[in-house]
């Protein structure tokens, strides 16, 4: 269950299987990257669902982080993830826990954080959505669909 980068790292991947709040492509690419890394990891169908049942497995994971190991979690907003562990009577300490936000970060950044450790990605996970970057990435995706017409129908109508 150790990450390729270090003996003392455990990785936890949340599939968010009951909702579509994490982009499908990010979830798929992060899982593919973890599976290709050569390391072991924990994967859960839905961290929210586990927290609701106060699944003792969460306490096992939280205890790892309190015992000198680093627990890296690929899920969503750190405030939500910490709240879920707290609800499950398995609060996460500040030290030894790195949460990567698949709702806002691209898969490569999440994977970098999970496999190699990336303090900047962890910090970015807790920050607000970068609306400008989101717009640019959406524009990039639209452009990738093919050459856009020079003028949009809306402009033609003016």
């Amino acid at each position: 269950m150790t990450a390729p980068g270090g003996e003392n790292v455990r990785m936890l991947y949340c599939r968010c299987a009951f909702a579509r709040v994490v982009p499908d492509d990010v979830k798929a690419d992060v899982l593919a990257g973890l599976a290709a890394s050569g390391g072991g990891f924990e994967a859960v169908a839905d961290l929210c669902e586990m927290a609701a049942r106060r699944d003792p497995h969460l306490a096992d994971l939280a205890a790892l982080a309190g015992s000198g190991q680093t627990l890296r979690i690929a899920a969503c907003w750190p405030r939500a993830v910490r709240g879920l562990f707290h609800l499950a009577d398995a609060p996460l300490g500040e030290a030894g826990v790195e949460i990567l936000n698949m709702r806002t970060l691209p898969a490569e950044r999440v994977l970098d954080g999970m496999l190699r450790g990336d303090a900047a990605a962890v910090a970015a996970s807790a920050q607000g959505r970068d609306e400008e970057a989101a717009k640019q990435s959406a524009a990039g995706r639209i452009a990738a669909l093919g050459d856009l017409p020079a003028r949009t129908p809306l402009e033609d109508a003016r």
Partner: protein
Amino acid sequence: MTTLAARQPRVVLYEGAGAEPLPAPERAELVAALLDRGYSVTLAHEGAAPAASGGAFVVVGRFAGRAPQVEAAGEPVTVHDATGRSAADVVTAVEGARGARPLNAPGAADAWKPWFPVIDPARCTNCMQCLSFCLFDVYGVDSEHRLRVENPANCKVNCPACSRVCPDVAIIFPKYHAGPIDGAPVAEADVGREKMKIDISALLGGDLYARLRERSSEAKNRFSRERSADQALAERRRCLTKLADAAAIPREVLDALPSPEEIQRKAAVAAERAAAALAGRAAAGET
């Protein structure tokens, strides 16, 4: 009331000594298929023999016909040799091995969608407003009179109403579509906005549920005059639309509200519990 099993069934995918590792794409496909069925998965590489603990009931690996003994405390563990099997075959075998263990499977018609409030302990001041607001016994208090989400499964799916009554923006619904309710950072402007929401409910009659009660009994009176359930329901819907918009309460939740008398009783019980918790905190010197 939905009752949740204590543990989610867990599968160990073993690739340590004695098992041939799966090619990476097949590994990802199998793990994804199991997760999407609702299982947790541990991908294990260590140990001469696979260990199964913490709710794992099946160990899967490519053992080439030489399935190993599994160290397990307590429950029996099935070992499944996945040599030459597709991800779909393995999922079918795991389903068979699960037997009568309960599974909350995403997408199943009777699945419980994990929608419930999550408290940000760094923001919560234990004012108990949420406890006195909720009619469905979602909230309770712990032995130290601190707020606790006691019955998450009682929460009404897609209803984030209680997050609007929290003056400190401490209530998160992780599967909500927007911040800060989804857990995104809280800006000063958000705190102001949430306070405004409370003012709106105050304008509507001080206590949202008192207002609901009033509207319901108006509809009930009309119902007895008109003897038409459909008309009464339509009226109740019309009257409640404004309130639903103000607090983002889904219509189904309003339609599912109990009788006015029951609402009154539940509101009184919730208010009493909140008052008792606050008194307990005051007596313990906590504010």
